[in-house]
Structure formats: C-alpha cells, structure tokens
C-alpha cells in the first residue's frame, strides 16, 4: 500500500479507497445469551483512526476482537480485513516462560519481520532496559509496552489497540498518540478503545459508541458527554503522577498545570 510516488494528500485520498466493512454484524457469546451488539454496519477506511467508547462491559473489547478477526460474528460478515493485523490486548498475557527479548524474537519470527524489530521497538517505547527481564516479572505498564511492541512491529495494515494507555508512564502516554497518527498517515487503519481519553485530541478521529447492544458512529455535533465541569486539584509533586494515572484510569480528562 505504499504509493511513494503520490503526494501526501493524494496518498491519504488513495488510502481511503481501501475500506474494511462490517455488514449487519451481530455477536453474542452463546446461543441463549443476550446480544453484545447487533445490526452493526460500518466502514473503516485505511488511514483513519477510530476511537471506540462506551461504559465498562458495554462490549468494546468484543467489538475490537470481531474487527481483529478473533471472534466470528454470529450474524453478518466482516469484509476487506487486511492481512497484516496488529492487536494489543487490554491485559497482555505475562504468564509465559520467556524473557521480553525471547518473546518478542519469537513474535517477530512468526510475523516474519526482517531486521531487528525487537531492539527498534524496545527503544521507541522505552523498555530497552527490560529486554532480559522475564515477562512474569514486568509491571503492568511494561507488559503493556511489550503488547504494543508485538502489535506494531510488523507494520500492520489494521491496528487494534484495546486500552493501550492503561498503566503507561507519562512519556510513553504522550508519545503514543503521535505514533498512532504517523501510522494512520502511512495508511494503517487504527481502532482504539481509550478510557483515558488520550487520543481524543488527535485531529480527525472517528468515534464509535458501544451501548445498549448497538454501535453508533458519533458525529462532531453528537454530544459525547453531558455538561462538563472543571475541578482544580492541588497535590504534592511526588503524588501527581499516581493521581493523574488514577484519574485517567477512571475516565477523567486530566490537564496538568505546573506552578
């Protein structure tokens, strides 16, 4: 998909012709279970970033798994899914007997990635000092970075990120939206669920809301929230990081103002 002879504008236009479609998709886990969502028809154009929102348990992760091809819809079909899919789960499975380097080496071999993607992505996501640590000894944020690295290393055409910002340190959390933006500009279809609301500042983000067994595309004039109030909270410098993480994890927008 790399039409390098096109100007950036024409390239973005050309990417949008490549569209993945969900047609009348419905999903439930078992035959007599209630539907997680139904009658879902939507398009995901190449080079776009789509944010999936919704309450806990609304079915965001299930929708992401259906889009990634990890769950088959009970009804309907998914068309035009690219062959190179990167998927980073909400909780990376650390219960594996590998060091970070060995694990990512195996994933790079499975994905047939040339070169040294392990060192490259470890440096980009700032976990190169953890390469020889066992997966089971990683903190939540570090494990999240390993999950992101295995999803990103193969230059995916479809990138699915399930709560990628949870537990990340501030530097990586700030860098990730830019990385997502670059991938989208290169033609990757990015679908992100993001309780921390770290990507809402990205320009041109499409939004899907999962609620009441349906998936709705939010337009810019659709109110995403009710009336918002700004609170100012003062904390000591050493508590700021943990409080910010907690508030973001609870779904609040956080802006830091240094004094």
């Amino acid at each position, binding site marked *: 998909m790399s039409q390098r002879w096109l100007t950036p504008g024409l390239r973005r236009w050309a990417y949008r012709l490549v569209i993945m479609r969900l047609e009348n998709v419905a999903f439930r886990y078992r035959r007599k279970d209630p539907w997680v969502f139904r009658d879902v028809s939507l398009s995901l154009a190449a080079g776009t970033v789509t944010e999936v929102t919704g309450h806990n348990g609304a079915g965001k992760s299930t929708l992401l*798994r259906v889009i*990634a*091809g*990890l*769950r*088959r819809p009970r009804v309907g079909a998914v068309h035009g899914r690219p*062959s190179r*899919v*990167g*998927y980073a*789960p909400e*909780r*990376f*499975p650390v*219960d*594996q*007997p*590998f060091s970070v380097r*060995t694990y990512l080496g*195996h*994933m790079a*071999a*499975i*994905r*047939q990635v040339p070169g040294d993607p392990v060192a490259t992505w470890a440096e980009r996501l700032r976990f190169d000092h953890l390469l020889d640590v066992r997966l089971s000894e990683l903190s939540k944020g570090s494990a999240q970075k390993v*999950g992101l690295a*295995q*999803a990103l290393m*193969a230059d995916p055409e479809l990138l*699915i990120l399930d709560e990628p910002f949870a537990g990340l340190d501030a530097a990586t959390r700030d860098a990730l939206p830019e990385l997502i933006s670059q991938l989208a500009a290169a033609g990757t279809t990015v679908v992100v669920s993001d309780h921390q609301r770290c990507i809402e500042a990205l320009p041109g983000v499409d939004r899907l809301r999962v609620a009441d067994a349906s998936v709705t595309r939010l337009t810019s004039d659709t109110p995403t929230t009710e009336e918002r109030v700004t609170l100012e909270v003062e904390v000591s410098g050493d508590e700021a990081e943990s409080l910010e993480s907690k508030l973001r994890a609870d779904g609040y927008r956080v802006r830091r103002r240094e004094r």
Partner: protein
Amino acid sequence: MIAVVRFQMAGYVRSLRVLPPFIVVVLFVALILIQGPGGPDASDLAVRTFADVAAFMFPVWAWAARALLDTQPDEQRALTATAVRGPFTPVWAGLLAAYAMNLCLGVVVLAVPLLQAVQAGSPGSAILTGCALNLLVAVPGTLLGAWTSRAVIPDPGVSLLVLLGGALALLLLGIGPLARLSVPMIEWLRAAHDGPGAFTSDFPAIALHLVLWSLIVGALYVATSRHRP
C-alpha cells in the same frame, strides 16, 4: 508455521510442563523396559515390546499433547492468531508441535527396546514395523490430546476426565463389534503376540486403519477449530 511450532515447543519446555510425561516415560523405561526379554523367546518378546510400548504410550501421548496445547494463555493464542497469515495456521502448528514433542518422548521410550531387540536378534523388518507402529500411534494419541485441550474443553477437570475416559472408551470399543470405529489397539497387540511374522504381515492393514482414523478425527478437529474462541 515453523516459527509458531518452535514458539509453542519452546514455551512447553521452558514452562517445565514437559517434565511430568517425561518422568512417567523415564520411570516406565527404568522400572519395566530395562529388564529386557530373556529365554528362548527373547527375539519374539523383544518385538512384542514395541506393540506394548505403543499401547502404553497412547494415553501418555494424548496427555502430553493436551499439556503442550494448554501451555499458551488464551490471550496469547489470540495474539498468535493475529500474527499468522492463514486462519488454520495456529491449529496446524499446534498439532505439529504436539506431534514433534511426542516423537521426542517416543525416542526416549523406544531407545532401550530397540537395543534389546537388536541384541536379541529380532528380525529387522519386525523392528522397523515396531518403530513405524509407534510413529503412527503417536498421531491419534496427539489428536485425542488436542480434542481435550482447553480450546475445546475449557474446564481442566472435565477435559482430564474426557481424556482418560476417551482413552478407555477407545480401548473398550476396540474389543466389541464397533472395533472399526476405534484405534486398532487390540489388533496390533494381538498381531505382535502372534509373532514377528504376523506382526509384519498384519501391519499394512493396521497402519491403514490408523491413518484413516487419524484423517477423519484430525479433519474434524481442524474443521471445527474456526468455531472455537
């Protein structure tokens, strides 16, 4: 495909899940097989050992295959599924990894009987038949393990019961009129106990039965894999 096989085998070995079946096999060799055949029928007994080993190893291979396929956490199975290109690649790779690991267990368990058969002067064709029988029996053993793995039966207690019950049911089914539906364990034991000549001459029919059983059960396993989470 090979990279997935290596990944699964490496995880199985590094997690030490390989140890329980390995210890069982070593104990079987050390306590039973090491004694070796003696007397005037040593040559025949040495050939018979190959058939007995195949019968003993059938549930062990199923158990080892189940353990290997259950080593990866469910979420890692999802990551592997997105990393490979073909939808059936993880299924084939899992079966191949389990079979390759079972062949390693087979080498451990057959080394001593092989030496004993050569020392006892057993016919070369019967020795080769014994090795080929074990190579073939490892396939249905692997498939029984795959059918009882977590991807098919999520509850570990139920899956262990199904594995043990399945192995027993296949043995009992082989005795009755529905023997053709089962793994031909009774046939290969009977042929080996009739002597090296009968063992060699009956082998093609037994091998065909094993291949057909494996093809049908394996095809069903692969075909239904897309409907599993």
